[in-house]
């Protein structure tokens, strides 16, 4: 029996078409919105905007000014095939396009990637609306109207539910953005084939069509086979330019995609064996990426990087009573590497939400070298739990608490919770009387937010201090941190000690780079105003005076 006859006879066309016509665009919407929200770290704005644009353009696409021309029953309009083909390509290039634009413009607040993503959402919405316009009236307002309408509604509703379940529990956790977009566009392409094969006898097919379809099948297969290579090339190009690099580890979990590269400092390809590399680590850089965002880029032989040194050194040096440390985040082992260097530290508790980074750090020989096997140190106690839950459950007292949230993704909500009075009160509950809390720049969504966070900390009964390491040339650049003390007295005493005992010990050059300052100006409102998206919007403009943080500089010469 021929396919089209089967399709029509057992009445699968309408439900199956309705299912796929809903399933694929819904997945594209989720993909674009998720990717852009990871790019901007502002989910509460990105999702609504992408959804609104998508819905608006579905409406524009489905608008019809004149009555549809009557068409014979069960005839697949050629236009529908073209529209679905367009959707397939738009979906295929969604993540790839955003990533290529994003990594080509890392320094320019990723605006182009956002505009491209919104344009794609609009295009997919429009094409989808048009496709429904082509599909709906001739099929459903003619024969068997009520029954077919109901089946179309049920199957398109099911498609939404299945799309969300598959996307959140299977596609995205198992394959990440890029491969999910490939998978969905491939399903969309199968739908194009389905439409093509179930067309009416009255629509002749010439050789060009057949060759075109065959070429597209080949294209999709080839891209699927080379998807890893394409993804790697885009990321390498972004962070390393044309410098050749070798992928040494990769992992994908529901919340993180981890990529680890090694590259030679002199720009030549890495051809050496593992033994040879580990024997001469000074010749190599190691690059770690989480969800496409930079985790670290360090010389393989380094024993400490300025960012992490600045997190611990002033406090561990000036406060020798610090024995119990709590690190919230820091699964890459770099914070632990820094912490274990201090003999005064008796117990270092690392709470990491995801096992992926810890597993790679423990098993990968290069990362073991980079982190000096910090996780194998008996003083380090690892726990896998959401840090916010840990803070709720724990009752122990710590002398130093480092809040080191991972970069990229869900950052606004981490910020929301970090900013909340309750989180800070919970941290205070866990802090020993003379202890210190350090919130890293990864957790602070932007330095501009520091004054708001400082104000919230004051409300929580903690005394804030702004710390900054401006970075030397060719280093990682700026590092901001918010330091919180139990009392004003302990803050004042720390600043005195820092000026008198610590600064004179700093190496030449660092004196002007590592600074602390009391925040003397903050926004008049507390935590809940940090939710305002206008702050983010304003921060994109050149006028930043309203949010400017003025610190009384305690450390400059």
């Amino acid at each position, binding site marked *: 029996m021929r396919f089209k006859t089967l399709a029509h006879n057992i009445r699968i066309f309408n439900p199956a078409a309705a299912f796929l016509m809903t399933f694929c665009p*819904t997945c594209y919407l989720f993909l674009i919105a998720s990717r852009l929200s990871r790019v901007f770290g502002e989910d509460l704005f990105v999702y609504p905007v992408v959804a609104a644009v998508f819905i608006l353009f579905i409406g524009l696409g489905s608008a019809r000014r004149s009555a549809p021309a009557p068409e014979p029953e069960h005839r697949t309009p050629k236009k529908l095939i073209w529209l679905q083909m367009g959707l397939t390509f738009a979906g295929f290039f969604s993540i790839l396009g955003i990533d290529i634009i994003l990594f080509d413009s890392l320094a320019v607040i990723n605006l182009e990637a956002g505009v491209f993503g919104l344009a794609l959402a609009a295009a997919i919405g429009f094409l989808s609306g048009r496709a429904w316009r082509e599909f709906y009236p001739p099929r459903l307002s003619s024969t068997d109207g009520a029954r077919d309408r109901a089946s179309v509604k049920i199957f398109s*509703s099911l498609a939404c539910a299945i799309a969300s379940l598959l996307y959140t529990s299977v596609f995205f956790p198992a394959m990440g953005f890029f491969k999910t977009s490939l998978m969905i566009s491939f399903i969309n392409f199968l739908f194009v084939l389905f439409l093509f094969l179930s067309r009416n006898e009255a629509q002749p097919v010439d050789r060009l069509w057949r060759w075109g379809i065959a070429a597209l099948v080949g294209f999709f297969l080839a891209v699927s086979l080379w998807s890893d290579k394409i993804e790697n090339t885009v990321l390498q190009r972004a962070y390393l330019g044309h410098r050749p690099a070798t992928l040494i580890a990769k992992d994908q979990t529901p919340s993180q995609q981890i990529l680890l590269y090694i590259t030679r400092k002199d720009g030549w390809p890495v051809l050496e064996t593992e033994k040879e590399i580990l024997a001469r680590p000074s010749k190599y850089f190691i690059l770690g990426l989480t969800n496409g965002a930079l985790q670290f880029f360090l010389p393989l032989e380094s024993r400490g990087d300025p960012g992490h040194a600045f997190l611990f050194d002033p406090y561990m040096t000036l406060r020798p009573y610090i024995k119990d440390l709590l690190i919230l985040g820091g699964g890459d082992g770099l914070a632990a590497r820094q912490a274990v260097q201090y003999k005064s530290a008796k117990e270092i508790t690392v709470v990491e939400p995801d096992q992926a980074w810890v597993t790679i750090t423990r098993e990968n020989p290069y990362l073991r070298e980079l982190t000096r096997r910090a996780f194998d140190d008996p003083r380090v106690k690892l726990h896998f739990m959401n840090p916010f839950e840990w803070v709720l459950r724990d009752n122990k007292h710590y002398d130093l608490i480092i809040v080191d949230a991972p970069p990229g993704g869900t950052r606004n909500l981490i910020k929301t919770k970090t900013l909340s009075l309750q989180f800070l009160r919970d941290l205070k509950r866990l802090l020993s009387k003379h202890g210190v809390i350090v919130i890293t720049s990864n957790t602070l969504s932007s330095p501009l937010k520091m004054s708001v966070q400082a104000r919230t900390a004051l409300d929580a009964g903690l005394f804030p201090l702004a710390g900054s390491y401006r970075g030397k040339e060719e280093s990682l650049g700026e590092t901001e941190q918010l330091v919180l003390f139990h009392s004003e007295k302990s803050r004042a005493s720390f600043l005195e000690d820092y000026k008198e005992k610590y600064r004179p010990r700093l190496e030449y050059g660092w004196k002007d780079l590592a600074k602390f300052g009391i925040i003397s100006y903050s926004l008049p409102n507390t935590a809940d105003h940090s*939710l305002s998206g206008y702050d983010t919007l304003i921060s994109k403009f050149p006028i930043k005076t309203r949010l400017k943080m003025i610190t009384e500089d305690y450390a400059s010469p």
Partner: protein
Amino acid sequence: MPPHKHLTFLNSCAAGHGALTYIALATAFSYIFSDPVFVFPFFTGLYLAAWGLGTLRAEKPAGGPEGTVTLILFNSFAGILLATPGIWAALLANETLRYLLRTRHQDLLFLILPAGIILTVCLGGVFGARQAAFSRLTNSKKNPEASLHATFWESDHFGASAGIMIFAFIFNPLWGLIRGILLSQAIALGVTDIAFLRSFPKKQPFVLKILFLLANLCVLASLGAQNFMITGLDAMSGF
């Protein structure tokens, strides 16, 4: 204004109200679950599925156009009655369960997900039925069918898009989640009340009159309780 333009405007408002409530719901749950990459797709899919299934309820309403109007009003009041108390209750339950976890080490946070799913499905179903009833009412007018059908979907999508934008760029940033939800429901209630009072309330079924009363009382009580709610949540979480 010709009757179908009234309908188009009301349809647009209803679509905006539905979409705004959905985005408020998703925002609240993305706060509760701390993972918007999971929350937004998951709750969007559920809401759309329930919306689609809800449209089936309006396939054959009893009582002709009057029955359809009753169905629209019924779902509007039901949606308003579900939205503010539902979302507030979810936020309150979240903070209470966290408090329990902190003080008594009782982990009952898992209860919020099924509650969220039920709330989302109920709201999606209610708003889907309302939009389908609007569509039915629009198509029953003596006008060229294709033209009216197009106007209906245009206004529906435009309204939904505007509703989402209004919540994301005005209500939530300016008044916060709790007041933003309440304000949107209060506006929706105002429009629904006018529609109810103009649709010969004496002829409407008893259940609808009760819903009208409850929705008004609920919004009035919420307006009075908003500051207590915010203070209470602040006390528990600093939200």
